[in-house]
């Protein structure tokens, strides 16, 4: 039982990070029907911006951790959002009315560009961040096995929860959210009815990138190291999560993220860590066989 609870804590933390990234994939797919393969690398860029900001703040003598965290969050979200906006503007918008594969190829190109840019600008080495948030709490303990939850795990899960709620509110209640839903249903009709679709799509990328940058910060704080390559692996996992949950569906992205995190964790805890990726992807295949649109996805309605 204790062992199970411990795995649950680990799995939910990992799943939260995947979920935050998965939202970016699912939103973009929902609105313009393309897979933004550069999104994983936007997450990585977010992590690097956060690392630079942390080190800069420490260097100029900001020692209060909550203040530093808050500033890093602001800086990283703003700058990464800029990246998200620029990626859309440069690589996707000119190709929006081109044939379907063009933006996909351009997304893969963008992913390679971002990866190589960071590799050259920041070096290929693993970049460490000294542990900033330490300490934790004992949840339960029996028969000599202690279940611990660390402060950083609490922060990761809480931050994700707050952002998810905020984001759901944004989509459901605001003008921008209404525009986004309108674009999702029918891009052409929305534009005929006066929705500024360029602006809506840009903002979708901006918000997705900002959420990915928060995931980047959480990743950096949780594991303490980043390198230019993390975007690829995390991106593939988050994309899988989005597909598993039903691509295009917001709760689906979150659910998919949690599931992937939990599957990986429980598989390595009860079987062997060697095959955790095999396990995660096998379950994806099984789910897609029985639920081709993912767990919460809606079947695409053929538009006449």
């Amino acid at each position: 039982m204790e062992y199970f609870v411990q795995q649950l804590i680990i799995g939910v933390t990992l799943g939260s990070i995947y979920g935050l990234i998965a939202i970016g994939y699912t939103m973009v797919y929902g609105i313009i029907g393309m897979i933004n393969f550069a999104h994983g690398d936007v997450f990585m860029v977010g992590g690097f911006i956060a690392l630079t900001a942390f080190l800069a703040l420490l260097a100029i003598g900001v020692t209060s951790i909550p203040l530093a965290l808050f500033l890093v969050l602001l800086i990283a979200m703003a700058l990464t959002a800029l990246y998200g906006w620029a990626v859309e503007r440069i690589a996707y918008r000119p190709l929006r009315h081109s044939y379907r594969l063009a933006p996909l190829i351009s997304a893969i190109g963008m992913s390679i560009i971002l990866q190589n840019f960071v590799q050259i600008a920041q070096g290929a080495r693993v970049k460490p961040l000294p542990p900033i948030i330490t300490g934790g709490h004992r949840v339960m303990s029996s028969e000599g096995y202690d279940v611990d939850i660390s402060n950083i795990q609490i922060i990761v899960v809480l931050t994700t929860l707050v952002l998810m709620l905020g984001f759901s509110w944004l989509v459901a209640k605001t003008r921008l959210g209404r525009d986004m839903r309108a674009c999702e249903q029918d891009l052409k009709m929305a534009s005929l009815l006066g929705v500024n679709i360029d602006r809506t799509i840009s903002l979708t990328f901006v918000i997705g990138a900002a959420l990915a940058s928060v995931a980047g910060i959480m990743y950096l704080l949780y594991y303490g190291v980043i390198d230019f390559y993390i975007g690829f692996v995390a991106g593939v996992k988050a994309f899988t999560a989005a597909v598993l949950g039903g691509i295009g569906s917001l709760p689906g992205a979150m659910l998919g993220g949690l599931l992937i995190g939990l599957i990986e964790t429980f598989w390595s805890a009860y079987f062997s860590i060697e095959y955790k990726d095999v396990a995660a992807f096998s379950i994806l295949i099984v789910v897609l066989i029985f639920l081709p649109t993912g767990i919460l996805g809606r079947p695409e309605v053929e538009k006449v």
Partner: protein
Amino acid sequence: MKTIWLAGVALGTSLALAGTGAAQDITVGVAGPMTGQYASFGTQLKNGAEAAVADINAAGGVMGKKLKLEIGDDACDPKQARAIGEKFASAKLPFVAGHYCSSSSIPASEAYQDGGVVQITPASTNPTFTERNMWNTFRVCGRDDQQGSIAGDFVAKTYKGKNIAILQDKSTYGKGLADEMKKALNKGGLKEKMYEAYTQGDKDFNSLVSKMKANKIDVVYVGGYHTEAGLILRQMRSQGMTSQMISGDAIATNEFWSITGDAGEGMMFTFGSDPRKRPTAAAIVKKFKDKNVDPEGYTLYTYAAMSIWTQAATKAKTTDGKKVAETIKAGKWDTVLGPISYDKKGDITTVDYVFYKWSKDGKYDEVPTGKGS
């Protein structure tokens, strides 16, 4: 007509110049992971090789010719290593110091053999490297069967009756080392409680750590590189595990400490007795320190590899691969690491693996208690 004549003269002169340039220099190679997550080791190799070439050239070069260094980046990837092997072999380089990862050195060595290139690896410890009856493979470091068995003996003796976990990263180096350690451990009468393989490049080992916690593991032996070992250690400490971690020579880099921070304190690993402390190395270590470079890990091993080839080529009066290789095997060489001589396979005859421990201030030092029997 006149222009053609002029062009001819120009061409002739430039060819002559190119010719004299080639006659002046001997190009030798150094190869390792200059980029990627093990780039800190590539830097060690590069630093060592560059310093050696500078010193050799200052002392008059090889047979009156200067050495020129070409750097190959394999990113610790077997495919890239093989490509560098082909490239260096077709460029007719007489000698390569490298590579770092065993999984790179082994595929590259075949290309070197075909091209007549002598290869001395400063760092690849997997036994297979010198076990394939090849004339061109040498190393200046020890082997994992020696390293692993010292670690296995030590753990079997020191931690009798304790719970041992063995982890490895599925790489040629990591798996080889872990399996040699396991062999010695079992021979010493201790059976490991866990044996797990993880994937290189992974960052999340929390569930593995909690599994070790549930199994009440006292000692963790890692066959793998410092990035993953450092992360596992960091996640162990943050889950409140106080177990001892022990690993191999891949921990001999200051980057380990920058990953673990204070969690790295007490980490133990096996490595050749510290070359930086040998009297033969004092002058060279000072030169490095003046340039603000710590000749850590395999830096001085690479320096030694360069100097062994130079001495052998000078003695054999040729850069012909096979002849130099024979000379290396027959002779005894003075290096920064002390005198080195070779057996028939290309392994060094004296091996002195000792235990090191990371201390609170982020430095590693030999621990006398850890001397292998």
